[in-house]
C-alpha cells in the first residue's frame, strides 16, 4: 500500500514533491511589475497567487493632505495614459460635494477627451500585449497609431500623457480653433487604421463566475454581461449620445482582447457624435472659490474607464481636504479572477491570460 513497499522503479512520486513553486516577476519580459507566485505540476498550473503592491504609493493617504484642487495631479498618476478617465469620477464627486454645475460645452469636451484617452490607453495595452506574446508587429502598430491621438490630446491639453485637464467645475481650458476638423480627420484615419488590425488564446471565464467575482470592464463584457456605465448610468453628456457597447459571449482571452479593440471603434463613433452635438462656443468652466470646502457629506461616483468601472468614494467633513478618498479601480477588481483563471491552465498561456484581464499594475496598487 505504502510507496516504500514497492520496488524502486515502480514507486510513485508524491504529489507535493512534483509541484514546483515558480516566481514570475516583478521583473519579467512583460509590462508592469507584479509578482505571480505560481505552483506548477509539470506544465500545468496548480495554483496562482498574485502579489501586487510594488507601486503602492499611498495615493489615498496623500489625498487627505491636499485640497480639492491640489489633488488633481497626483490622482491621475495611477494610469497616466488614461488620465482623463481616472480623474473623471473624482471631478464628478467633487462637483457634487462643492455644488458646482458643469457648462454644457465642457461636458462634451470631457466626453471627447475621455474617449480619446480610452483609445490611447487601449492602444498601449494592445502594444504591451504584443510584447507579452512575443509579437513585434503587434507592438509597433498600436504604439505608432496611438501617437496620432496623443497629438490631438496634446493640442487640447498641452501635455502628452499627464493632462490634468479635468478640474472640478469643468475643464481647464477650451480647445484651439479648428480643433474639431482636425480631430475628425484624425479619428477617421484612426478608425480606418485600426480596422486593419485583424488579430491563440485561453482562460475561460463563464458568465456566472464573471458576475460572482465582481469583474468589470472588458473582462465582464467578454463573458456576455452587457454592462457599461456609459449606458447604464450615463454621466455628463453620455446620456445624449448613442453608445453601442460591444459584448461577446465566449469569455476566453481572445474575447477579452477583442472587446477593447471593438471599444476603440465605438469611441470613434462617440467622438464624431460629440463633435456634432457640442455647442460651438460657451464657457467651459465655472468659477471656483479659492480653497473650497465640501459639506458634511459623502459621494460615490463611478465612470467607465479603459479598464472598466472606476469608482471614487469621497468622504467630506467640512474641510478643504477630503476626509477619506478611495479609488475603486477596475484593475484591482479584475485581479481576483487571476488565480481562478490560471488554475489548470498551461504555464505558457499565463502571459496571455494575465494581460488579457486588462490589468495595469500601477492602477491596482494606487
Amino acid at each position, binding site marked *: 500500500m505504502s510507496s516504500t513497499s514497492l520496488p524502486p522503479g515502480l514507486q510513485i512520486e508524491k504529489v507535493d514533491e512534483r509541484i514546483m513553486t515558480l516566481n514570475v516577476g516583478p521583473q*519579467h519580459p512583460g509590462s*508592469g511589475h507584479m509578482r505571480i507566485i505560481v505552483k506548477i505540476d509539470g506544465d500545468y498550473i496548480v495554483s496562482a497567487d498574485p502579489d501586487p*503592491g510594488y507601486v503602492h504609493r499611498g495615493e489615498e493617504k496623500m489625498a487627505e493632505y491636499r485640497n480639492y484642487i491640489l489633488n488633481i495631479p497626483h490622482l491621475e498618476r495611477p494610469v497616466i495614459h488614461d488620465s482623463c478617465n481616472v480623474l473623471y469620477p473624482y471631478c464628478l464627486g467633487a462637483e457634487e460635494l462643492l455644488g458646482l454645475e458643469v457648462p454644457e460645452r465642457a461636458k462634451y469636451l470631457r466626453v471627447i477627451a475621455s474617449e480619446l484617452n480610452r483609445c490611447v490607453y487601449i492602444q498601449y495595452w494592445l502594444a504591451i500585449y504584443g510584447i507579452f506574446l512575443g509579437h513585434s508587429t503587434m507592438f509597433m502598430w498600436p504604439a505608432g497609431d496611438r501617437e496620432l491621438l496623443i497629438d490631438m490630446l496634446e493640442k487640447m491639453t498641452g501635455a502628452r*500623457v499627464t493632462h490634468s485637464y479635468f478640474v472640478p467645475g469643468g475643464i481647464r481650458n477650451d480647445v484651439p480653433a479648428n480643433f474639431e476638423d482636425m480631430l475628425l480627420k484624425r479619428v477617421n484615419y484612426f478608425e480606418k487604421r485600426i480596422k486593419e488590425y485583424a488579430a491563440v488564446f485561453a482562460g475561460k471565464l463563464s458568465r456566472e463566475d464573471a458576475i460572482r467575482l465582481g469583474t468589470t470592464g472588458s473582462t465582464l463584457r467578454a463573458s456576455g454581461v452587457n454592462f457599461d456605465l456609459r449606458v447604464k448610468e450615463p454621466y455628463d453628456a453620455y446620456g445624449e449620445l448613442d453608445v453601442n457597447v460591444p459584448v461577446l459571449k465566449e469569455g476566453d482571452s481572445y474575447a477579452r482582447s477583442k472587446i477593447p479593440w471593438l471599444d476603440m471603434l465605438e469611441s470613434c463613433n462617440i467622438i464624431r457624435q460629440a463633435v456634432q452635438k457640442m455647442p460651438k462656443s460657451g464657457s467651459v468652466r465655472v468659477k471656483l472659490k479659492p480653497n473650497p470646502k465640501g459639506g458634511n457629506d459623502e459621494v460615490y461616483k463611478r465612470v467607465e474607464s479603459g479598464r472598466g468601472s472606476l469608482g471614487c468614494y469621497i468622504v467630506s467633513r467640512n474641510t478643504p481636504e477630503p476626509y477619506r478618498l478611495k479609488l475603486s479601480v477596475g484593475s484591482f477588481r479584475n485581479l481576483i479572477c487571476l488565480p481562478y483563471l490560471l488554475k489548470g491552465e498551461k504555464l505558457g498561456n499565463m502571459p496571455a491570460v494575465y494581460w488579457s484581464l486588462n490589468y495595469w499594475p500601477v492602477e491596482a496598487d494606487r
Partner: protein
Amino acid sequence: MLKDLLTPQNANVFVGKLGDVLVKAVDQPLGYAINWSRLWSLWPVHIETACCSVEFGAASGPRYDVERFGIIEAFGSLRQCDLVVVQGTITRKMAPRLRLVYDQMPEPKYVIAMGACAITGGLYFDSYNVLPGIDGILPVDVYVPGCPPRPETLIQGCMLLQEKIKRLKAR
C-alpha cells in the same frame, strides 16, 4: 637573442613586461574601440517600475524609435543587459528587487534615473511608501527630469549617457 633573455627564471617577469608594453601601445585605441562598440548597443533591462514606462514604451515605438541612437528595445534577460532605465517611482517593496536586478547584470552597467520620482521622489515626496530618489540603492549615471519625461527628453538622456561612456576608461 630572445631565447637567451627568456630563461625559465625570468619568464614571468618578461611576459609581464611585454604585456605592459603591449597595453601601452594599444590601450587607448583598444579602449576607444571597446567603448565605441558598447555605446552603440546599449541593452536596457525590461523593468517597468511605474508610470514613466508609458513614455519609455512610446520612445521605443515607431515614431521616436530609440534604436536609431543605439538603444535597443527593452529586453527580458538580465544577463545580456548593461543598462537599467529606472522608469519612475521606486517603492519600499520594490527597492530590494531593483537592487537584485542590478546585481545580476554583468559589468559594465549603467543606470538612467527617468522621471522626477526616480530622482527625488517627485510628486510623492510625502508618501509613506516611496523612496526619495534611487541614489541610495543604485549609482546613477544620468538623470532625466520630467513627470513623465517626453520621449525626446529620454532620448537626450540616452545620448548624454553615450557621451559619458565615450569619455570613460574602458573597463
